Every structure is written in structure tokens, then in C-alpha cells.
């Protein structure tokens, strides 16, 4: 797609070797290079992710038997709260945009950096500050937060644990997220290379664009909502307190006005990654380019109007329930458009089952299960039965871990050689995939079954008839953890001592990142590329 006359000079120093104003550690933590910031994010996000995984592992272990297995009920409550906060606010929300978005968005649109490089670095510092506050709140006297990640009123006002620190942390993380989204929107509007019209842009930037708008438009709502809980705790204003005239259900509205679209902040970038992986490893032009691009925007739009489906049992009017249920069904359409287009891309493609492709295919499988169970819960009559059971826990792990998690893993294997100029062990990568995929299903599928049978979520103890499902699920978590250990080991080994490569296009991709050095130079491009063709021009495979 690019002008092939881009000068290739092998002696170019990569962004990893680039000597800026500062050297050593400062060369990283004070760098405004989008690629270095991406690596900074990668390091910190991975660390929190592993802590989140450990907490999840311990929660599952506790549920292995009835009664107390390893931890007490209060610790259990803190664990599922902190697990949720870490995984959502520290891993999946920033995850793909901050790591892959930062690294590849400017390259994919032919820019030298994002629109506001210093603001970009600032978001990383906000992120670190927020994440350190989350962890601090766990260890300070008063105890770790135990309200669940949803901070529902009135418990989040009444509990004696360190809520204010956690809430401030979430506020700061939200600010970081807003600024990243803002930066990407402006970058896409203003920095596209000459000739790169909107519909010549690859699909990953499209996904980041849609995500950016969700981040900018809805995140402030959670900001003000969290501030209000802090005010309630400090001053007892009474805005959510029924005895003073307030309405706790209004809190739930405000919370989900952000937190449902936030699901799409998590999923849409992952869908963007998958769109890239599917087309690269099928060696075939993506099917329905415009449909995929617009479906991201449609998800962003409709996804912002369905928050009420989290509250079917909270006492809304029947009309409200009906309308929210209807729009929930509507939002399934753009999601399905993506799935159908991905599958259609596979048709008659030269599919290469490389590790990233395995994750992409698993993504489609898991997302379909997650999406369809979401439709079940969007149905009013069924939701009354399923609400607050482990069915919902299974559903959102399929949707969020299955998309954002597998999107990150697939993206890592896809882009690690480009980012670091080193190859990973493909055999190990495939082993990690199978452990992750099998472990994932054994871990989360029983949750649908026991939830259907009535097992409540967030419950410390349970009746003996549910034990078999909990046991299967916990065993699944062990398999999943083995897969994660292998994955982390494979990635770290690749980055530290993997075989060096400078092959620019090791996977036969067509987007711009495959036309720059491996690893990219400090300024990405020697000359500003001029775009003439369509993205994904795999002409030789056209039907």
C-alpha cells in the first residue's frame, strides 16, 4: 500500500538504542516517544495484571470447598473487590490502547508520534499514581476496599474500609484514560499521512477512534459519581441517602452510564487487534472493511444507551426496562457484523495457524459465547432468574477476558518481534495458547451452569450441591495459570534473549507497521509515507 521507494538503511538506530536528552532509566521515564511510552505501559500493566491474576486464583481456590478453605469472608470480599478494580481499571481499560495503541497507532497512520507527546507521558504518570493508590488502599490500616468494584451505595458509604483512597485512585485512572482517548482522537484527525483518507486507515486505528470517543464522552460521568461517594463519606451530603431524600438507584444509573460503555472501551480495541490478526494470517483482504469500521462506531453509539440492563432488578419502571432490553438487543447487531465479517475473511484465505491467529480464532469463539449469553441476560424474563448469579460472572469473563485478554495475548505474539526486534519460541507460544484456551473454558463455563442452577455471585460460601461445579472451575483456573506462566515466560525470554531479527515484514502484513524497520527507528519513517492504495491489499488472494 505504500510507496515502495521508502529508503531502507540497515544502519538506522532503533528507538530502543536511540540516545535522547537523557540516558538510562531517565531515557525511558522522561521520554515522550510514543513507542517508549508504550513499553512503559507494557511493563506496569503486566505487573498489575499478574497481581490481579493471583487474586483471582486465590478467590477460586477459596471456593474449591464449602466453608473456609484458605481465607476468611472479609478477606474474600476484599479479594474480589481488588481483583475487579485491578483487572478493570488497571488492565483491560488501559491495556490495548495504552500498549498497542500507543506503539502502533502513529505508525499505522504514517505519523511520527501522537498529537500530544508530553500529554501522552503525563497519562502514564497519572496511571502509575492511580495504580499505586489502589495498591496502597489495600495495605493501609482500615482494610482493603470490600464494596465490589461497582462501589454500590449505600455500602460504599457505610463500610469502614479505605474507600476514599480507592475512589480517588479510580478517579485519577479515569482522567488518565480520558487524556489517552483525547490524544488518539486528535492524532487520528490531524496526523494521518498524506493520502490516508478515513477509509484508507487500517481497522485498529478505527477501533481506537471509536474507543477514544467513548472514553472522552462517558468517563467524566464516573469521575463525578466517584467524587460524590467521596463527598458522601466526608460530609454526608445525602444525595444518595433515602433518609435525606436521595435516591440510591440514581447512583446505579450514574455508575452504569459510564461502566457499561466502559465494557466497549475494553472490547472495541481488542476487536481492532483481531481485525488485524485475522486478515494478516488469512493473507486475505478483510471482508466488509467499511462494515467493520462503522460497526465500531455503532457499538460506541448504542453501547452508550444500554446501561439500564444492569439494573433490571433494581426497581426501574417497566417502560424503562423494556426500552433498555430492546436497545441491548440492538447493540448485538454491530457485534455480530464484526463476527460475520471476520469469519467471511477466513473463507478461502490461506490461513496460517501462527500463535497470534490461534488467539484470534479463540477470540471469535469466546466472544460469541460471551455475546450470546449477554443476549440471554438482556431478556427481561430470563434476567430476573439469572441476575446476581455466577452466570453473569461467567458471561463477563467470556466477554472481557475472552476479548481484551485474548486480544492482548494475540497482539503480544503478533507484534513483540516488531516492538523488540526479537523472535519468540513459537512452539512454547502454541503450548501456552492451548493451556489458556482449555483452562479458560473449564474455568468459566461451569459458572454458567451453576448460575443457571441458582449459585449467587460474590458469595463466600455455598450449598454442597454446587461443589462439583466449583471444583471443576477451580481446576480450570490451575490450567489457565499454567498457560499464563508459559506465556509470560515465553514473552520475557523473547524480549531478553530471543533470536534477533530485523526482518521488516515477518508475517506478510500490509499495514504501514510492516513497512518500517524492526524495531522501528526513533521517528518511525525516514520520509513521510504517501498512501495511494487501500488498506489490506492482498491482491494475490482476491477471490
Amino acid at each position: 500500500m505504500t510507496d515502495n521507494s521508502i529508503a531502507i538503511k540497515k544502519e538506522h538506530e532503533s528507538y530502543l538504542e536511540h540516545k535522547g536528552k537523557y540516558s538510562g532509566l531517565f531515557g525511558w521515564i522522561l521520554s515522550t516517544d510514543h513507542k517508549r511510552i508504550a513499553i512503559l505501559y507494557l511493563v506496569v500493566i503486566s505487573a498489575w495484571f499478574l497481581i490481579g491474576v493471583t487474586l483471582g486464583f486465590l478467590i477460586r481456590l477459596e471456593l474449591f470447598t464449602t466453608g473456609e478453605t484458605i481465607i476468611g469472608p472479609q478477606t474474600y470480599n476484599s479479594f474480589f473487590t481488588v481483583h475487579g478494580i485491578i483487572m478493570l481499571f488497571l488492565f483491560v481499560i488501559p491495556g490495548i490502547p495504552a500498549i498497542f495503541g500507543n506503539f502502533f497507532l502513529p505508525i499505522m497512520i504514517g505519523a511520527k508520534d501522537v498529537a500530544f507527546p508530553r500529554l501522552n507521558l503525563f497519562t502514564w504518570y497519572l496511571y502509575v499514581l492511580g495504580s499505586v493508590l489502589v495498591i496502597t488502599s489495600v495495605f493501609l490500616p482500615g482494610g482493603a476496599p470490600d464494596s465490589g468494584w461497582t462501589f454500590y451505595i449505600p455500602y460504599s458509604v457505610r463500610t469502614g474500609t479505605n474507600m476514599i483512597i480507592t475512589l480517588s485512585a479510580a478517579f485519577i485512572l479515569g482522567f488518565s484514560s480520558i487524556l489517552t482517548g483525547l490524544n488518539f482522537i486528535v492524532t487520528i484527525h490531524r496526523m494521518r499521512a498524506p493520502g490516508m483518507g478515513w477509509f484508507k486507515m487500517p481497522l485498529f486505528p478505527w477501533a481506537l477512534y471509536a474507543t477514544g470517543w467513548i472514553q472522552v464522552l462517558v468517563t467524566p460521568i464516573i469521575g463525578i459519581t466517584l467524587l460524590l461517594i467521596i463527598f458522601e463519606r466526608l460530609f454526608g451530603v445525602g444525595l444518595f441517602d433515602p433518609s435525606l431524600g436521595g435516591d440510591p438507584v440514581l447512583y446505579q444509573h450514574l455508575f452504569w452510564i459510564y461502566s457499561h460503555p466502559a465494557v466497549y472501551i475494553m472490547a472495541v480495541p481488542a476487536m481492532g487487534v483481531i481485525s488485524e490478526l485475522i486478515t494478516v494470517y488469512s493473507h486475505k483482504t478483510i471482508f466488509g472493511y467499511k462494515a467493520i469500521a462503522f460497526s465500531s462506531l455503532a457499538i460506541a453509539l448504542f453501547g452508550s444507551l444500554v446501561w439500564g440492563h444492569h439494573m433490571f432488578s433494581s426497581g426501574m419502571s417497566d417502560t424503562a426496562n423494556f426500552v433498555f432490553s430492546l436497545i441491548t438487543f440492538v447493540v448485538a447487531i454491530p457485534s455480530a457484523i464484526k463476527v460475520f465479517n471476520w469469519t467471511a475473511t477466513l473463507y478461502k484465505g490461506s490461513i496460517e495457524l501462527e500463535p497470534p491467529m490461534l488467539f484470534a480464532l479463540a477470540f471469535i469463539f469466546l466472544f460469541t459465547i460471551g455475546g450470546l449469553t449477554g443476549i440471554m441476560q438482556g431478556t427481561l424474563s430470563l434476567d430476573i432468574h439469572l441476575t446476581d448469579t455466577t452466570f453473569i460472572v461467567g458471561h463477563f469473563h467470556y466477554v472481557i477476558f475472552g476479548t481484551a485478554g485474548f486480544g492482548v495475548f494475540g497482539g503480544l505474539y503478533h507484534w513483540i518481534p516488531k516492538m523488540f526486534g526479537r523472535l519468540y519460541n513459537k512452539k512454547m507460544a502454541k503450548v501456552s495458547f492451548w493451556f489458556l484456551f482449555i483452562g479458560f473454558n473449564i474455568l468459566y463455563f461451569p459458572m454458567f451452569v451453576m448460575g443457571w442452577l441458582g449459585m449467587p455471585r460474590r458469595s463466600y460460601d455455598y450449598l454442597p450441591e454446587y461443589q462439583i461445579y466449583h471444583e471443576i472451575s477451580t481446576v480450570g483456573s490451575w490450567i489457565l495459570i499454567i498457560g499464563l506462566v508459559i506465556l509470560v515466560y515465553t514473552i520475557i525470554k523473547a524480549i531478553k534473549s530471543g533470536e534477533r531479527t530485523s526482518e521488516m515484514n515477518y508475517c506478510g502484513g500490509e499495514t504501514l507497521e510492516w513497512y518500517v524497520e524492526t524495531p522501528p527507528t526513533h521517528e518511525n519513517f525516514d520520509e513521510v509515507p504517501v498512501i495511494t492504495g487501500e488498506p489490506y491489499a492482498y491482491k494475490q488472494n482476491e477471490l
Partner: protein
Amino acid sequence: MSSEGNVAVHVHRDDEASKLGMWLFLFTELTLFGGLFLMYSVYRYTHQADFHLAAQNMNTFIGALNTAILLTSSLTMALSITALQRGSKKLSLSFQAITIFFGLIFLVNKYFEWSHEFHIGNFPGSESLLNKSQGEILFFGLYYVMTGLHGLHVIIGMAVIAVMMKFTINNVITRTNYVKLEAAGLYWHLVDVIWIFLFPLFYLIS
């Protein structure tokens, strides 16, 4: 950390991008307050009579005075940009200083208003407020949260303009490169616009 050695050569300037970024940021500020306006409309709808009653306690004169002060400060802010564009750095600096001064007067008025309410016992958790109707409690709760958050924005705006004054003195902001001052101006107008909505909601509809 503004420039990394040889990168400085390539720092490109895109005022359109800066302005687009600022507008997006203002958008987020509007949604931040939007959450509160949403709460105000819900509670006003459910407690109409109480809200009327509570609003009668407010001193419309100080509210109107503050509105006039903020509107004038928006004018001086705009004048400071025009002055700079016409090459008068000194005049621009004085207008920026006057804008900060108006912000200060606004806050002093606000301080007297708040302390008056505190004096007669209208503050969250006070006994006399808890004895009032639920709608009045909500009204004053929203009043403190919304004007408080707005006041915080006034303070931030003043700090931003102070930085802009420093930039103007150091010639970071110049006749040809004034996008930073424009962005600060946009922020100050936002602070103004939010107050224009707060004023009728708390003072006039009674």
C-alpha cells in the same frame, strides 16, 4: 522534558490540533458537570415545591453580581488575546491580570455567601438543615457540590491564566504563537458558561 535533543528540530506545531484537543477536553468538563445537572433535574422533578422554597433563601443580588463579574472577566480574557494578536504584550498582560482579579472577587463573594449559609446553619449534616424537608436538604447538597466544584474550576482557571502570564512575559506566548492563551481563554469561558447555568438553577427559579 519539552524536547529530547535532536527531536526538537522536528517538533511540529499544529494549532488546529491543540484547539481540537482543548475542545474535547472542554467536552469532558461539560459531561463532568452533566452528571450533576442530571441529578439536579431528577431531584427538582421529584421535589418541586421544596426546591422553590429553598431557592428563596439565596441572595439573588450577590448571585447576579457574580454573574456580571464572570461575564466581564470573559470579556477581559478575550481582550487579552486580541491585544496580543495586535502586538501589545503589555496590554495583554494587564487584561490577563484583570481576569485573575475578577476571578478572585468572584471567589470572595462566594466565600461570603457560603459563610452566611454556614452561619444560619444551612450546611450538610447540620441540625437545622436536617430538620428541613428532604427537597431542601437535596437543594443545599447540590448547591454546595455544584458551586464548590465550579469554584474549584475558577481556582484552576486562575492558576492557568497565571501560568499564561508567565509564558507571555517569557515570550513563549507571542503575537504569532498564541494558541496556549487561546486554550486558556476557552477554559475560562467554560467556567463562565457553567456558572451561567448554575445561576438561574439555584438563584432565579424560586
